[in-house]
């Protein structure tokens, strides 16, 4: 079992996203996160998909994705050097002595406090998924009010690219 980050370019058309998500449920493929938005070319969307599976299942996933009529191109980022980032918005209880402590932790993780109330912060943080997981873990469980994550998006390092 290995974690793969699949990056794909697809036609920015109604139904394209459904085709991808329906494929995963119809064929029983696991999907950990999915993140999608139009690119600089408005006719194209870029999707980043994270899945953990065996090599043979991964082969099927990429073949089946390629087979979808709306999918233009596809790349497995985990095949080479790449950068992955995820953004998290996390609302935490911040009272009394914990106000300072949480601020300090956020700084260590290079998070930004973007909303403050008498007893809470909203912290914005980007990084790879592991870093975000780690931050959530260092906050005492009963202080975490709400976690919103975008799912991974990624890009290959160097000149390698996924473009038309």
């Amino acid at each position, binding site marked *: 079992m290995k974690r793969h980050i699949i990056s794909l370019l697809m036609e920015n058309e*109604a*139904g394209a996203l459904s085709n991808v998500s*329906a494929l995963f449920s*119809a064929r029983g493929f696991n999907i950990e996160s999915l993140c999608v938005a139009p690119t600089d070319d408005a006719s194209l969307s870029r999707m980043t998909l994270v899945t953990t599976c065996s090599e043979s299942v991964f*082969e099927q996933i990429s*073949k089946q994705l*390629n087979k979808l*009529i709306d*999918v*233009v191109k596809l790349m497995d980022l985990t095949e080479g050097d790449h950068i992955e980032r995820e953004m998290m918005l996390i609302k935490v209880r911040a009272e009394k002595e914990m106000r300072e402590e949480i601020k300090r932790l956020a700084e260590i993780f290079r998070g930004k406090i973007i909303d403050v109330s008498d007893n809470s912060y909203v912290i914005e943080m980007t990084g790879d998924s592991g870093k975000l997981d780690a931050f959530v873990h260092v906050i005492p469980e009963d202080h975490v009010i709400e976690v919103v994550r975008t799912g991974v998006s990624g890009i290959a390092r160097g000149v390698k690219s996924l473009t038309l």
Partner: protein
Amino acid sequence: MELSGAEIVVQALKDEGVETIFGYPGGSVLHIYDALFQQDDVKHVLVRHEQGATHAADGYARSTGKPGVVLVTSGPGATNAITGIATAHLDSIPMVVLTGQVPSALIGTDAFQEVDTTGISRPCSKHTFLVKRVEDLAETMRKAFYIATTGRPGPVVVDIPKDITDPSVKIPYEYPRNLKMRSYSPVKKGHLGQIKKAVELIYNAKRPIIYSGGGVVIDNASGSLIDLTRELGVPLTSTLMGLGAYPASDRQFLGMLGMHGNYEANMAMHEADVLIAIGARFDDRVTGHIAHFCPQAKIIHIDIDPSSISKNVSVDIPIVGSVKDVLNDMLRIIREGDRKIDNDGLTSWWERIEAWRGLGCLRYEQSDEVIKPQFAVETLHKVTGGDLYLTSDVGQHQMFAAQFYKFEKPRRWINSGGLGTMGFGLPAAMGVQMAHPDKPVACITGEASILMCIQELATCKQHGLPIKIMLMNNGYMGMVRQWQEMFYEGRYSHSYVDALPDFVELTKSFGHVGMRVTKPSDLEAAMQEAFDRKDELVFLDILIDPTENVYPMIEAGKGHHEMAMSPASKQGGQR
């Protein structure tokens, strides 16, 4: 040329060269039906149930290679069509299904006869479109036909909201002939390096076998398959879907493989050292238990769909490309080279195969009293000279037809293999007969299957389709009964088909000819009469042995070498 959306639909059909469509009207397609009414080029066959329309279009496509076209209304029209869409999808049949949809402004409001047609059909079609603007309609039609017919073919659904076909809105029309899609470009040519590797592997083989499938039929590659097989002198077995692509009377043909395949074919698969899979998809009915599948073989797989390759069985030399292109390249390489296949190896391989063949796995106990289904199919073959378009329903009769009607040509055996859809046979035969008005067309069926689309007898009357229906009436859902006999200790739970109609009278009430046959000695004359009545639909209600089982058989969880044989073959009984 300025056309309305409704006229664009019809004009696009003409521009695609479509001569016949199958459909059923309703509110959301009335504008299109009005446009159809005002022209004569595209012929419309009115069915009696939308499932019938899809199977008819499917039969049309399977027997011609041209895409089948369906037109149905929104809501129940579309849902009734789903079974036929799924049937075509699993067997890779090119089809374009036009469905009406509620007006754009009402989509999502639970409007009258609204269903999410693209949502329902997405998992069982090659692609779906929802037309959003009349300006997109012509291009969408072109894309639908292009996608349906290229690469690995399949059904494409085009969902058209009623306002898009508004007759009062006319726009300039030009059919986009040279369509290019950046996201879709199927490969045809195989990789030459891979092909050379495959040829090398074949040269070194001692016990090679060709396993050919529906892809050969789909690609009209029968000629290339025959050339290659003869050139190599190797044995060939075919899936249910590939029957006819290689002539069944040829010595190199081992018959069908798989669950109800021939003993010699399955044994040869089991002992082969090189397997050449051509346009076949390693279906579980073919492989048996995967762990026991071709344990000694290196596998070459030629398929146009990369996702077919190494899906169920991992292969050694994948070749992505069309059957015809790849086989022709292979042949050229073989003919230009000076290598020859290992002839000594091949000779002893054939000796082994002939010994398996000698067992006569299709032997059955003949009877003077009761008609055996195997005998019925053999008689059908005799009466039609082996030259027949034969559609089938699903069940024992389908397997007997596959085993005993020796198909010599492709596109003659029309059956639902992947989905196994009961009800397919009769409407599919309508499509075949529409495409081949002067050719004999028959449908082999069971008393359970035929009732699933029996209403289409009215369509046959209206359109004068002289189909011959061969009902193998055993009073049981024979295939189900067989499994209950073998695996449920004879507990025949709901597999007895009670309260059957009198099929002869039923047929007559639809205005056709119905006849009943009960004695083996009357069968040939009855079949002969049926085919002699060239302009009439004849329904033969053939009462067959209710207890006959299909053999040989690989039971679930077993391998190719563990076939159960018929009592007659075990005893070396009469053939």
